[in-house]
């Protein structure tokens, strides 16, 4: 019996941005993301309130996994954040905070949304073309002949996530490992276009961080029993490999719907097992040394293979299949029927390894383009955070190889960019307004909001009541204790700018970031050689940050453009 229920009418809300409800929830969301930002950011405990797993994090990707928002406008924001993070891993919080700031700062301005949106677009293109140009003073080209910049980049990412719980020494250790893991994924033979290999993070929870390590090739976890049974392996030449993605467990899961009638005395199981043993015979005939299966191998087949000195490794999981196939040059076999010899591949060697209490098979490829990062951390929640952070770092390194630049981090890029935009809109408004018909006043209003949004974003790095200063020469970010002595003492109080490029030794003048100051021409920093040789710079990923900026402005524009929210309440 079906029951019909009258449909509820849809709810239509006009000018959603002016509603109190949205403003409150938007400010809660901004509060969450902004308080997470930077190396001294505060952590969030995500849990289901009923004794489930607790995740302690300050990363956008982990937060997003736990965030479930109801307001449609917030959904737009979190979806853009999600998309950005899935493409670039880094700068998710940056994007979200900037977007919230952009919306917040145009609130009081009495201009038509279209004007705001159009001018925001102009300012964005001003920014992107500057950031991509040679003249850009807040980016450094990456010198691949030394590890300096790359190490600084990885370090900056690791230190920006306090929930990893790393000490200084551990940060150094993990940065070096991440970089080495990445370098191992670059194929030795450079061709026209390089295809990067993969770096696999292998969990080893409960051990000390300092016990983490990197190995070329792959680690497959196994039981001691299986390891004992198969080793030692003695073979001088490479091992011939067959890789199965189909289950060899001997079940028949695809019997379809309905009932299958089998006459008495017929055993389907033994029929399948016979088929498996035939397959085994073929593998032996083809001189296979190593059989790897994504799923389970039937114990009888394993026994058969091992009596013929074929090593069988099963239950490797779907995550390892792609790198395994790449590394060994195999085609994953998906049927129990005859196997084409072309689907076989090879590995150079196979040995066993023990880390902590876990046993592993260690597959060493002929050409190393796969690395395993064995990651340890003391507790689960810190391990999860460290894993995500290392994944981000590996991804960022990949992005950096494509576009070999890094941005100055620690808030310097944001303040510098704001100074640049102020200067441009004041001194060359014509060049910005040439295609659009808006007045200079309108431009100044929106530019001020845009710059404030950027500066406030930089200010979000401070969580302990300090003040943010900017110097009047480079437009970099400086932090000072609140209620500090008068201006004359600043050079004594300040040591380095946010990114670490400039020190108080240079004769600079500072002003509070929040105060209205006279626009100045932000100068180009030190020559690039000096920059790339500097130690301990805080750096950000070029590609991710640039995209974050674009996504933030576009999402803000989209939200500002909303006139109605129509919700289907059924």
């Amino acid at each position: 019996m079906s029951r019909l229920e009258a449909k509820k009418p849809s709810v239509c809300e006009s000018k959603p941005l002016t509603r109190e409800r949205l403003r409150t929830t938007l400010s809660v969301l901004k509060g969450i993301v902004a308080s997470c930002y930077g190396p001294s950011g505060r952590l969030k405990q995500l849990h289901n309130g009923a004794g489930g797993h607790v995740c302690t994090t300050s990363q956008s990707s982990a937060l997003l996994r736990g965030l479930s928002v109801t307001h449609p406008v917030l959904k737009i924001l979190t979806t853009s954040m999600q998309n950005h993070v899935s493409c670039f891993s880094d700068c998710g919080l940056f994007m979200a905070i900037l977007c919230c700031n952009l919306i917040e700062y145009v609130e009081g301005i009495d201009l038509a949304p279209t004007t705001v949106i159009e001018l925001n677009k102009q300012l964005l293109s001003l920014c992107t073309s500057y950031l991509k140009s040679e003249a850009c003073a807040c980016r450094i080209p990456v010198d691949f002949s030394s590890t300096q910049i790359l190490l600084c980049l990885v370090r900056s990412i690791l230190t920006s996530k306090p929930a990893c719980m790393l000490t200084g020494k551990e940060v150094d250790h993990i940065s070096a490992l991440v970089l080495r893991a990445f370098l191992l994924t670059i194929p030795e033979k450079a061709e026209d276009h390089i295809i990067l290999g993969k770096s696999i993070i292998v969990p080893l929870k409960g051990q000390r961080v300092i016990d983490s390590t990197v190995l070329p090739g792959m680690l497959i976890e196994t039981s001691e029993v299986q390891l004992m049974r198969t080793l030692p392996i003695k073979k001088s030449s490479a091992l011939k490999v067959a890789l199965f993605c189909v289950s060899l467990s001997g079940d028949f899961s695809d019997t379809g719907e309905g009932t299958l009638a089998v006459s008495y005395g017929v055993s389907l199981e033994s029929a399948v097992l016979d088929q498996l043993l035939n397959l085994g015979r073929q593998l032996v005939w083809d001189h296979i040394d190593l059989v790897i299966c994504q799923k389970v191998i039937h114990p009888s087949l394993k026994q058969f293979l091992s009596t013929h000195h074929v090593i069988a490794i099963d239950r490797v999981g779907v995550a390892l299949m792609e790198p395994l196939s790449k590394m060994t040059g195999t085609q994953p076999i998906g049927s129990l029927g005859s196997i084409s010899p072309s689907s076989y591949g090879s590995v150079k060697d196979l040995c066993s390894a023990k880390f902590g209490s876990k046993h592993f098979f260690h597959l060493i490829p002929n050409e190393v383009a796969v690395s395993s990062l064995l990651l340890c951390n003391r507790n689960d929640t810190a391990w999860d955070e460290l894993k995500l952070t290392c994944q981000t770092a590996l991804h960022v390194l990949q992005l950096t190889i494509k576009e070999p630049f890094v941005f100055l981090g620690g808030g310097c890029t944001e303040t510098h960019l704001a100074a640049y935009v102020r200067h441009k809109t004041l001194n060359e408004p014509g060049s910005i307004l040439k295609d659009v018909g808006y007045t200079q006043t309108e431009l100044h209003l929106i530019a001020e909001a845009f710059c404030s949004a950027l500066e406030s974003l930089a200010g979000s790095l401070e969580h302990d009541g300090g003040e943010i200063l900017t110097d009047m020469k480079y437009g970099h970010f400086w932090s000072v204790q609140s209620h500090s002595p008068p201006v004359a003492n600043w050079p004594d109080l300040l040591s380095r700018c946010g990114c670490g490029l400039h020190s108080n030794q240079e004769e600079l003048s500072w002003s509070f970031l929040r105060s209205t100051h006279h626009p100045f021409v932000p100068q180009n920093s030190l020559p690039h050689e000096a920059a790339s040789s500097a130690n301990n710079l805080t750096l950000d990923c070029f590609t991710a940050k640039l995209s974050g900026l674009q996504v933030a402005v576009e999402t803000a524009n989209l939200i500002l453009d909303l006139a109605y929210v129509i919700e289907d309440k059924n």
Partner: protein
Amino acid sequence: MVMACRVINNRRHVGLQQLLSFAETGRTFLGPVKSSKFIIDEESHESVLISSPVRLLESLDLTSAVGQLLNEAVQAHNDTYGTGTNTLLFFVGAWSSAVEECLHLGVPIPVIVSVMSEGLNSCSEEVVSLQVPIHNLFDHVDNTNTFSGFETPSVNLCPFLQIPSDTGLIQKDHELKDVSQSMTIYSLSGRPVKSCKLFRLQAKVEANKDASQTLQTLINSRLADTSCRKSILTHSRHFNSTDNNHWVSKPDGLEQPSAATSKTYSCNDLVELAVGLSHGDHSSMKLVEAAVRLQYQNACMQQGSCSLPFMFDVSRIFTCCLPGLPETSTCVCPGYITLASISSTALIKELKDQPVRVVLVQGDLTENYRHLGFNKSTNIKTVLESMKVNQDSTEELWAHHVLQILTQFNVHLVLARGNVSDHLNEKCVYSKRLVIGSVNGSVMQAFAEATGAVQVAYITQVNEDCVGNGVYVTFWRSVSVDVVDKKNRMAILLKTEGINLVTAVFTGPVTAQMQTKEDRFWTCASRLYYALKEQKVFIGGGAVEFLCLSHLQIIEEQSLKKGNQAYSGWLHNSSSWLASSLALYRPTVLKCLANGWHKYLSTLMYNTASYSSEFEASTFIQHHLRNAIDSGSPSSYILSEYSELNSGVFNSGISNKLEQIPRVYDIVTPKIEAWRRALDLVLLVLQTDSEIVTGHGHMQINSKESEGFLFL
């Protein structure tokens, strides 16, 4: 779905307070005199007796996020190291309140995090000076062959252990003989002499008292460890005489403050090491020690000349609880002891005197068992085509088939990791074959190694290569009636020549204590395992903590003098204003961190009942702290004043018969990691400013305590 978000550190940090209150519950577990706790379920009126943090947290309601994190940290530490959870739990509490104190004084959170973290690092590096290397422990085991002390009654092995709260673990003098007897009886080699090797070292100590001339010279030649040698008799680190100045009279190097301890002291004696690591729990430690010796003997017999370095393998120790038997039956035996149904008595009598062939089955031994990863199709139906009368069920057919295979390969013993079909069991008993289910994985592995059997998933896989040889099945005790438990099961012993497996049997009249006994045994086993594995131990009894305390005070005083210098590297983010204000807050934070150790020491002293109040204990510590710092080198101060400190910290004034101060040892990595984990947890909670409740949880929030939550 609604997501709720609550700010948790308005003014007072809720998370830290929760940590503190959880940690407080474990306070009485610290130290050798542990007060057990009853945990009572108000609804079911069930109660459990617990005396370790792991069991405590298991029984508590930990649905809060912080409670979960604490439980996770304690479990992870226990899984990795098997010991040190008391330290972990205590420091979680101590440092939570230390951090709260810092917050109260207005220290910025990132400064607390970096100073505490690096302060602990600095301490971990400092305490290396109190490490004692362990050398050639097992050379001595061999060297003592000449002393056949088996006849010497080991009267004094556990003489003064009269801790009131510990009564369940007090050993009787004759217990030791009992152990050796049981070993002798079941020694397969039939040479009882072999087994007395186990106790030779103790015997030697006995002989030592008689000051036999040869023995004396032998000991003198190994001067470095003589002091420890006698101390075996005193065992407990908590009951020492006050008037002893043994360490002061130590030879060479002690008076030189800079002398590395490792040169002066080393630990070369297994008994001394075990006693030092027992931390008051001698009965458990003695079992562990016996287990080590059994493994060592076995390794020697297997390799002939012990050429490879011997490794103590905890995974090859198995425990078996037999509640109801008298306490004195507790022992360790080579081989595998397990429970079998009383109905197989006749069968065992029959199998008793001959080696049997064995098959090892990895899964269940039932008809419908399939290996992991095999998905059964539910929609297959067998139809009968003809009207053949089929009385035998499929299970009957299967059992018949299994029996056929067992007969074919002449197998009389089957060990299965999983369950065993009752029907098959009956059939097997009938045909004089013993089937044992639910066998531990490492036991299977040990049998596989010793007998040459290969583990199989199905009995149909069995071929000649899979079958193992030479297993002996007997009753655990000659009088089998003794060892029948409530479920009509009796203890049987399976062993084979050269099997690397030791079973520790726990007996006792009080069932509620069995868990605790087992836990304590494993704790001692883990301690000894790490000591042997790392080949080094700390001088224990609070010495390490005392050194941390004085070290922190020294760097605190230094940083007060030096002022704004050189410590900006301690903060990840060196450009922030926090880096420059680090010097300002550093002494305060270090002081708070040091308070954690101070609290640890005073609680330890208070718990061991040597002081009537924690305040009194605290005064004692302060006094020695000042002296240690004034001496210029706290580590040499600790070494030279060890006896006094030790007696001050742990003396309860009970015993004045003892002549020597025994060394107390602590294990290295598990201890340092426990500190690190505790601090990590506290700092993780400290840096958390809000909790985000996702999913269905908001329902409960709505009903209970919706105030303070923001909804998205």
